[in-house]
């Protein structure tokens, strides 16, 4: 059997809305992935450390508080600084359209907004990981 994809679902910043993060975590787990959830109020540095320690292939960030432009890019930057640029970083939450290009430019490969079907997220990760 193939080694399952390991994913870190993370909540950066002070936002307490974790319904979406937990639903995604559960859906990815049900799709056969190994999922670690950080819990609330993580700094980008803590997320980078957790991603490296847990040896994940994907980091899925969730924010609904409007602080994504401050919180998502430093995660990608931190991973690069730790030579972990191969870890795929995804984002989700309430993210205005005009913020998507700067986030993608910063290295967040895909943004999933409200109403996303979890099957799309699963398919995206599997495709990116060549499964």
């Amino acid at each position, binding site marked *: 059997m193939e080694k399952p994809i390991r994913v870190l679902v993370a909540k950066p*910043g*002070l*936002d*307490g*809305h*974790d*319904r979406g993060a*937990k*639903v995604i*975590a*559960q*859906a990815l787990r049900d799709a056969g992935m190994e999922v670690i*959830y*950080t*819990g*609330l*109020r993580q*700094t980008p540095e803590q997320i980078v450390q957790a991603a490296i320690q847990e040896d994940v292939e994907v980091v899925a960030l969730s924010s609904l*508080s*409007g*602080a994504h*432009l*401050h*919180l998502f890019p430093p995660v990608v930057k931190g991973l690069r600084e730790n030579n972990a640029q191969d870890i795929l970083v995804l984002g989700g939450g*309430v993210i*205005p*359209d005009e913020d998507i290009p700067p986030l993608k430019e910063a290295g967040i490969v895909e943004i999933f*907004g*409200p*109403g996303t*079907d*979890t*099957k799309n997220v699963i398919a995206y990760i599997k495709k990116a990981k060549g499964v």
Partner: protein
Amino acid sequence: MFDKNSIDELKEKKSAWQSKLNEQVKKRPERQKEFSTDSGINIEAVYTPAELSDTASLDLSLPGQFPYTRGVQPNMYRGRHWTMRQYAGFGSAEETNKRFRYLLDQGQTGLSVAFDLPTQIGFDSDHQLAMGEVGKVGVAIDSIMDMETLLDGIPLDKVSTSMTINSPAAVLLAMYIAVAEKQGVTPDKLNGTIQNDILKEYIARGTYIFPPDQSMRLITDIFGYCAKNISNWNTISISGYHIREAGSTAVQEVAFTLADGIAYVQAAIDSGLNVDDFAPRLSFFFNAHLNFLEEVAKFRAARRLWARIMKERFGAKSPKSLMLRFHTQTAGCTLTAQQPDVNIMRVAFQALSAVLGGTQSLHTNSRDEALALPNEDSVLIALRTQQVIGYEIGVADTVDPLGGSYMIESLTDQIEERAMKYIEKIDSVGGAPKAIEYMQKEIQKSAYQYQLDIESGAKTVIGVNKFTMATEKPKGLLKVDPAVGERQVARLAKMRAERDNAQVDAILGKLRKASGTNENLMPYFIEAVKNYATLGEICGVLREEFGEYRQQIVF
């Protein structure tokens, strides 16, 4: 209500009718295999007096009378409408003050303050963890100076103000009292609510600071202080709203909220307060979700169950202690980013369910809230929706108009019964503070099931999994000025440079000392904020003395 013979006859008749219907359905299946509410309560094809409980007339009673199923006041909205109270706040205190005045000019009757996350978690705007969050989901309040700006030109003896603030509620209340005093309004003239509900922060909302015991102490300090000094203030708003938003069912919303309520009442009694001194000022906050009939029944069931709990479990005597008064907000989680104008209809039906359920105040969400904070045009439609319900369609002209509907009464009974089972389960593990992870697990299960139902098509969401179409995102969404953070930090630095810092240090020292005793901390908070101690400084002292809550990761 009906004599036993005629009920027996009806039961037989219905059973025959049902068999005939079942035959017919075999040939021509119904739209769905099963019909049930969001809480999984089976819905029958029709309801009759046979479904009413034997004690229906006692369970129903009359409005303003125990067990308050039909409403807390005898004439409800014939006296006056519910308070139309739109939750608002973003950016700086100045911008939010402008939005407040706009809403009051448009006929809104009460204020509701949304604070930004750093304020809710007791950090000043210049704290490292506040970066990027200042002014985003609410207004930034660092000191009494910001509070003065926020409330500028608003007569605090005439307007009631609700503040969505929990862990640092005592400090924000202290600021409000101090600003009122500057306006010449004494505390006994103040009307309003602080949310002050820490248990649901641990369970579902996430803006906790201190551990449970210390948080409960702050809450009982507030109860004690307000009972003596601000007798019209609602000292807590025990909230099911966020539990529902996190994904619970209607039954779980009622059960977990009332379980939290029980814990607060018990804590206050344990701290030496008399139940009838503080219980009349407890208030509640519920969600108005999509399943219209279940929602109407939910509000009624919650009211009846609380009255029984207060009377039977806590021996409360004052009728006011038995009355569950509540605010309602329409369900944010049901708003779609797709075809957002359709949200106007969702909100209208949800708001109507709250009115038919007897709410005391109401917030209607705006159509664009799945995308951003609402802009002025959207907020206006939301407020007008309430005004249409209140002034145009006649539902406010009689009390509990759906009371006596066989379906609504049957659902009300079932919700009460199922919620009570949950409460017994929570009691058996030691009450709500000990059942946080249990409740989280239950909520999470429901949330995941809800998502699976949407993805399988078992649950329809117009614009998401049915009747979809490509639409452009609306223009003119509200964007919080990204410079608000910098401006707020500069304002804070200036204030710190101008105040008497030795005085602030001395007062914070006194607070530190008192925090280790059983003394009521409210007077210390009031003295501190009057001398321009900041929210972050005050909470910083308490963080050092009380420690911080660490979340158990449940998933």
